[in-house]
């Protein structure tokens, strides 16, 4: 199965969840998602998603200067982002349950 296509549908939720506990900068978020097992997630996809969620008001952002290198743009979740994440969670659980049940049935039939 083409998991990159599946990933596209849940990337918003995944990115929101990645910054739900701790603020992070772009590559930071990529690293967390990969650590969580989403190996195929694209860097640029994550960066674009962060910008979009920020533009939609689900994230806050701030710049942290760095002594050793270029500054870092950190993203953090806000109330709207949390509400969005909750909604994503519910939808995903419903969806995942439905598809799981369906596939399980298919397995038996096969």
């Amino acid at each position, binding site marked *: 199965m083409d998991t990159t296509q599946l990933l596209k549908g849940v*990337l918003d939720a995944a990115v929101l969840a990645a910054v739900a506990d701790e603020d992070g*900068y*772009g*590559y930071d978020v*990529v*690293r967390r998602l990969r650590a969580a097992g989403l190996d195929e997630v*694209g*860097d*640029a*996809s*994550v*960066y*674009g*998603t962060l*910008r*979009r969620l920020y*533009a939609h008001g689900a994230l806050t952002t701030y710049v942290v200067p*760095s002594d*050793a*290198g*270029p*500054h*870092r*743009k950190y993203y953090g979740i806000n109330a709207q982002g949390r509400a969005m994440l909750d909604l994503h969670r519910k939808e995903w659980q419903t969806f995942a349950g439905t598809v799981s049940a369906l596939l399980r049935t298919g397995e038996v039939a096969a």
Partner: protein
Amino acid sequence: MSTTTPAGPPAGLAFYEHVRAYADQVRAHLSDLRPDLVEDLADGLEADLAEAVVDAPGALPRGGDAAGGALLDLAALFGPPGAYADELRAAAGLPPRPVAGTARPRIGLRGRLLVLGGILGSGWRSLWAPLTSTPQWARLREFLGALAPVWWVVRGWVVATVLLWVFGGYAVAVLPPDLSARLLVAAAVVVSVQWGRGRWLPRPWLRRGARYVSVAAAVLAVPLVWTATSGPAGYVAWDEGYQQGFQAGTGAVGGQPVSYVGTGEDGGVDGVWVDGVQVSNLFVYDADGRPVRDVQVFDDRGRPVRTVDVDGAYQPWAVPEVEGSWYFQPALSTDGRERWNVYPLRAVAEEDADHATDDGRPVPLTGTTAQTMPWPFLQAPTAVPPSRDPSATVPDGAHGEPEGTPEGGATDEPPAGGPTGTPGPAGESPAGTVLPRTPSPTPVVEAVG
């Protein structure tokens, strides 16, 4: 923001140059966006890239020569910069890069029209979707698709008919009257069928042109077919005669060029026609075959017979056997009215014509007079004996006053050279002998009035 050394890379400045070059290429692929959007999207890209490189196992050559010239292939790690930029903007919910390149999109009028057409088209399609999504509709389409060859033939006929109509002056008919026009119709049908089969369209612009032609033909097909097939009975036959006459009149067929005058609005043709050729002038010979001048001609309804109608009086005519163009002139009755049914008509050469009259009709310049046109024969065949039958004379009041006849005056006395009058000159030829046409004009005898 991106001028300091990278965070913790072991390979030094050369490494960072690679990263920045890659980031710049990504930005270049975003250059069609607003600058603030590009900044928003690519801000901190170098730092992210650098860190990703450091993280990637085996991507960074570690060792002595790394700082110098080791090629750091970021494209192998992140993909081509263009694809990276596309992924970035797609995830950010921004429109994809225009295909043409990195220039700012210029939509222009054509683009706007295309967009508008697309919107209207999709709206139109969705409007009919309940109908067009049914299996019956699919069957109808299939059925109509089988009729496509019929349309190809009709399309060829429409194009040929329009061409003949516009450039050849032909009336709309199922089949044009003469062979060359029929050949054109046949050729157009062949081309149309070949187009329909996808042949004979070697160039894209031809294909596009064929599409425009098809649309135009589709629009014109119904009125043209209607016109060609729904005329009254006899319309076609009359039409053919008219067309032949017109063709002869324009000099396309016959040797007697006669200027084309025009048709009445209701489809009738003004003027006098013989064998499909319009008559410009009439020449009358008496029973002995001698020319008769200044004859008034009426038809059986008492209407004056005019070869030159109102429009024709304003147009130059070509006359057999004489050069140039001529404006025919009416005779004048005693009360000063113009009489166009007195023959032979005289005419004034185009260069001697004056347009000074109130209504703009050409008249002879001061000092010139209208000339008699050459007679076709000096003497006509004399097969007909002079009638002795009293019934041949017009009974008084048989038809009342002819239309347009002035009160008193011209009709009261026979015109000079009438049936009982003196014959014209040139009566020496033996009876039945037809002399060749001669350009020598008969001296003008005083017209009526």
